[in-house]
C-alpha cells in the first residue's frame, strides 16, 4: 500500500509521548480518521493538525478523552461563530457611513 501523505502512528506516538491507545480511542470516538493496514496504522496528513492539538490537550493539560471530545465540538462551534461574526461585520460595513 502506498504511504504517501501518511504518517506512521508509531512515529507520532514516539514524538508526542502518547500511547497508541490514545490514537485508537480518538479514532473510535470518530474524532480522527486513521488507516489500518497489514503493515501498520497510519495517520493521514490532513488529520495531523487536529491530532496534534488533541495530543497537546492530553499531555499538556491532562484532559481525558471525554474532555477532548467536548472541547473539539465546542471549538468547532467557536470557529463557526467567529466566522459568522466576521461575515456579519463585513456586511454591516456596507451600511456604515464613510
Amino acid at each position, binding site marked *: 500500500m502506498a504511504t504517501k501523505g501518511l504518517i506512521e502512528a508509531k512515529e507520532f506516538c514516539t514524538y508526542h*509521548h502518547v500511547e497508541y491507545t490514545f490514537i485508537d480511542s480518538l479514532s473510535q470516538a470518530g474524532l480522527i480518521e486513521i488507516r489500518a493496514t497489514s503493515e501498520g496504522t497510519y495517520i493521514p496528513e490532513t488529520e495531523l*493538525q487536529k491530532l*496534534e*492539538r488533541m495530543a*497537546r*490537550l492530553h499531555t*499538556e*493539560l*491532562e*484532559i481525558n478523552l471525554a474532555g477532548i471530545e467536548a*472541547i473539539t465540538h465546542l*471549538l468547532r462551534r*467557536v*470557529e463557526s461563530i*467567529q466566522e459568522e461574526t*466576521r*461575515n456579519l*461585520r*463585513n*456586511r454591516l*460595513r*456596507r451600511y*456604515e457611513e*464613510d
Partner: protein
Amino acid sequence: MAFIDYYKILGIDKSASEKDIKSAYRKLARQYHPDLNPNDTESNKKFQQINEANEVLSDPEKRKKYDKYGENWQHGEEYEKYSQQQQAQGGQQYRGFGGGGGQGFENYEDFGGSGFSDFFEQMFGGAGGRSSGRQAKYRGQDYNAELKLTLKDVSETHKQTLAVNGKNIRITIPAGVENGQIIKIAGHGGPGVNGGPAGDLYITFLVAADPNFKRDGANLYTTAKLDLYTAVLGGEVTIDTLSGKVKIKVKPETQNNSTIRLKGKGLPVYKHEGHSGDLLVTYDIQMPVNLTEKQKELFTELSKSK
C-alpha cells in the same frame, strides 16, 4: 523591563506549596491554552506568562533564587557586593546571580524567540537555564501579524513579502480574501523549547474600506450619478469598476435609486477560480439647479401635460 510577580500571575501567595502551584497552573493553563483560544492574542500572551511563572515556581532552585531577590532582581550584582560586605561583618550570605546588568531590555510583554520574557532570560539565563532534570517540551509561541490590503489588492491573487520577527516570508494572497480573514502559516511562529514544535504564524487581512465601493462577499455596490434628462430620455453613463471604466446604456424613464447589475464586475470569489461576484450600481438622479427662465417655462408646460 519590569519585575514580574509570578505569584500574582498564578494567583497564589508566597507560602504556596508545590501542590498549590501545580493546581493553580493547571487551572489557568486550561483557561488560556492557545489550543482552547483560537485567534486570541491576549490569551496567548497570558498563557506564556503562566507557563513562565510555573517554570520558575515549580522548580525549587529557581523559586529560591526568585524569592531571594524578588523585586531587587535588577540589582543582583550590587546585592552581591553588599552581601559580601555584610558577610565580612557577619551578615547573610548570598549566592551567585546569573546575568546582572539589566540594560537595553524591552518590555517584559515582548517575549523573545524562546517564548520567555526578558525578565526570565535575565534572571535564569534563558531556556538553557532550565534544570537538567526537567525537559518539558513546549510548542513555540504563535505569532500574529496583520496585513493591510486595499479592495484593488483583493481583486487579484498576488504574492507579498512580509517581515515577521526579522524573517522575510513570501506569501500568496488569494483573490477575494475577506476583511478579518485569518490564514495560518504552520511552523512560522516562535521556535519550540526543548525540541518542541515551532508555533504557527497567523496573518489577519485587514481590507480597508473603499471610498467608491461597498462590499458584501464577492459583490460590490456603488452609486452612479445620473442627470435628470438621461434618466428620463435614456442614454449612456460611464461607471467606475475595479477593473476600469465601463460605458453602459441607461434605459428611458430610469427611476431614482433603481439598481442595475453588472455581471462579473465584482470581486473574484475566494478560492473559486473563474468565478466573480457582480457590481450593483444604484442610480442617484441629480435634479437640475439654476434653471433659466426658458427651462422653467418648459418644465411648467411639461407639468401641464400630466
